[in-house]
């Protein structure tokens, strides 16, 4: 049988990779992809814990369901924003979207 640690370590590795993507990428869509990766990693964690510990309540599964749903909504909205950004500046390079800079 596969131990809980394996799932958790897998999820951690995926999370770190996703985080690396968020940090290092310039293209907004790729950042979005990395975020999705992180969300997926978290989902593994939830489900793994739920399967091993919480046998009756199923909260972890349901939570993951919600995460998936919200992630879908987020992707839709974020892509809308990215497209708007592209239309505005003809680029999806987020280094150029630095209006927040003093």
């Amino acid at each position, binding site marked *: 049988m596969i131990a809980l640690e394996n799932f958790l370590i897998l999820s951690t590795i995926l999370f770190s990779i996703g985080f690396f993507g968020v*940090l290092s990428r310039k293209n907004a869509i790729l950042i979005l992809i990395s975020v999705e990766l992180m969300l997926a990693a978290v989902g593994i964690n939830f489900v793994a814990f739920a399967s091993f510990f919480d046998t009756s309540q199923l909260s972890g599964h349901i939570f993951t369901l919600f995460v998936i749903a919200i992630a879908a909504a987020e992707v839709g909205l974020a892509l809308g924003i990215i497209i708007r950004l592209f239309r505005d500046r003809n680029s999806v390079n987020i280094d150029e979207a630095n209006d927040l800079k003093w």
Partner: protein
Amino acid sequence: MSIGMQQSWLLTLIPLTSFLIVSLFGKKLPRQGDWIVVLSGSLCFLITLLIIGDFQSFFHGHGFEPDGNNIYNFDWINIPNYLLIEYSTFVDAITVVMLFVVSLVGLMVIIYSIGYMQGEQRYHWYFSLLAFFLAAMFTLITTGNLLQLYLAWEGVGLGSYLLIGFYWEKQSAAEAAKKAFITTRIGDVGLLIGIIMLWRVAGTFDIQTIIQLAQESTFSDGYLTTAMIFLFFGAVGKSAQFPLHVWLPDAMEGPTPVSALIHAATMVVAGVYLVSRMLPIYTLLPIAQNLILITGLITALLAATMGLLAQDIKKVLAYSTVSQLGYMFVALGVGSLTAAMFHLFTHAFFKALLFLGSGSVIHATHKQDISQLGGLKNKMPITFVTFSIGALSLAGIPPLSGFWSKDEILLYTSEFGAIFYGLLLFAALLTAIYSTRLVILTFFGTPKDQEANDHAHESPKLMSVPLLILAFFATVSGFFIFPFVGNLVGFDSGFSGIVYLDHPHDFHIELSTMLVAISVSLLGVLIGYLYWLNADGRRAENAKEWAPEVRNLLLNNYYFDNFYQAIINKFILGLASIIAWFDDQVVNRSGIDGSAQIINYIGFRLKFLQTGKIPNYVLMMALGIILFSFIMVVNY
């Protein structure tokens, strides 16, 4: 209900009521309500007589023996085991003397004012203020506890402030009122400190209890001396003693009847009254008593010299008031309550008379400068005669009242020490000189201003009758020192039997001191006569050349005003500038705005962190997470 000593609170209530009525509705009342004030003044005089009658019934030849019915208590603030402040009245011999003086002079001044203030604007306001002042003054002299005394003390101060500033359109009047209030207020700081210091050890404000405790030497001498000196400081302020005498001459900006009432007969003697009241304690404390003596002596001398050259008729009188108050303090300083109260008694009448007389002159000529006056003796005979009686009484010519009381003070001082006696005699000489000068320059000689002289006329009856009554008292009140005169009005032993400190004593005449006093007074009058009468100003011209420095010194009142002004300008306002600068620069600019600017600067320096690149922000967040994780790991 018979009215006696216990009902002395009526004396506060009646004028206060009339003050409220006249000040609020005076404009709508017939004659602007002056009759209400006259009525209340008369009522007060009547009640005073009743109180004196009651007092007399407890007076048994060798002193006043009340059975507790001279006290009236009413709790004002009473929190058990904590603080008791009561409204209380206490009537004894000192109170009775003061009551008589205040109610009589008060009534005279009110009547006189009807004539003097005729046609003035704010007529009702003037009368309501008189009523207010009387209420406060009666409260002051009938009080049984120190806190109520302070309350009334400030009350008379307020009345004085408002009355000095009655002609507030004149900047000088406004300034004088301010000066009077602030100067006396500085004294009041001492008074309040003294009162609270006494409360701190005695636990009560009741005067008689405090005196009793002090006599049983419950308190340490040093502490008591400090407290009593602070208390005396209050008296110095109110009674215009050196070094706080500067306000009284300026206070003459007020209407003349007010000067007669407040700044001659009643309010300014409040300090004398206070020290007299507390004299049983002062006699235990030689340092405090010597301070009183020296202060009184300096004041008597200084003010007498200042009076010599003053040009304003009222200012001469003001200086003489300051000087005579100094006499009273000297008497208290040598421990003679009798002499001080007696001088207070006679001085009130002749000084009020002098002020009202000068008011009559001013009313007739609209001039106050004595160098502009002259030759009025035929135009205004009643004023002339009564004024002269007052002046001679001031100068100490027998048999007028001033002679007897001043002689009493001189007598006690001669017993105390030769130097004091000599200086006081010198002051008496000066007093005689300037009183003579005042009368001569005002009423004799040729008129300097013919036009004013032509218009001059004798004052109406409303003004001359009070003059005559006061002249009568200025003449006869001195005889009250003889026991047989006392018998006539029902007091067996005369004045010295009524007011005394420890034991009743008979009036005694030292023929030698009396003769010295008479000769000094006559010498003064003679000098004045020779110097100013028929001199056609020649000698005055000569005087300008003789010792101009001294002359300037006297004309500028020893530069006291300049000195105080300099202190205020340089020191107090300088300090205020420094603090205002401190507040503006240090607290505001550096402290408050400065901290805002520091944050602003830090932000400016740190803004490079704000790259606007989202990955950078996320990186920072990650760094934070790592830091946090490490802390967590270490903590576990």
